[in-house]
């Protein structure tokens, strides 16, 4: 079974440019999550999709970040315009829906390393 995949693996852009990151979850996983790790800090939650709906976007830093999941399959995270502080590693994770009594174990992709110059 294929794991979570992310594209690109690395992206280097200049301040003010736009970048779009893509995540393909494990097949059949309705839950999709975006996280970010800024250098020297812990991994932090950005948002959570259940199918195509945003369940929780409390971690999105500001309105320069836009996440979509059309059709409930893959997801994109767009940063427009990018700022220097957006540099970091962006992880995507997915999980099955185990119901309200269980906690969904999240499986992570390899991440996209974003560098904003």
């Amino acid at each position, binding site marked *: 079974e294929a794991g*979570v995949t992310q594209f690109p693996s690395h992206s280097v852009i200049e301040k003010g440019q736009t970048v779009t990151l893509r995540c393909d979850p494990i097949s059949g996983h309705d*839950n999709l*999550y975006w*996280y970010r790790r800024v250098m020297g*800090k*812990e*991994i*932090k*939650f950005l948002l*959570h999709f259940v199918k195509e709906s945003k*369940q*929780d976007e*409390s*971690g999105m830093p500001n309105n320069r970040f836009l996440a979509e999941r059309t059709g409930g399959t893959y997801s994109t995270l767009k940063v427009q315009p990018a700022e220097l502080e957006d540099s970091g590693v962006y*992880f995507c*994770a997915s*999980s099955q829906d185990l119901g*309200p009594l269980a*906690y*969904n*174990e*999240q*499986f*992570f*992709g*390899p*991440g996209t390393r974003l560098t904003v110059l």
Partner: protein
Amino acid sequence: EDQVTQSPEALRLQEGESSSLNCSYTVSGLRGLFWYRQDPGKGPEFLFTLYSAGEEKEKERLKATLTKKESFLHITAPKPEDSATYLCAVGGYGGSQGNLIFGKGTKLSVKP
């Protein structure tokens, strides 16, 4: 505020030298505590989920335990291939079901 603190930040062991990693947490109602392993340039790899105090889980040389305030990841007779960063994360009832709070991790190096 939900928080996870891992110690030590880094740990160097000789092959075969057993030790433990600590994860202290504060959370408004624990849904679950998770241990992940992360190798350089890769995403976190799921290891264990613990749901309630007193629970223990094992996998090869790793054993995770949970109390009401902390979790330990015990490594028995480690091998060089166990070298990685070990991450602890919690999910609490105060946040959404998908919002994991991570610690900064413990970087483990095992020398032959």
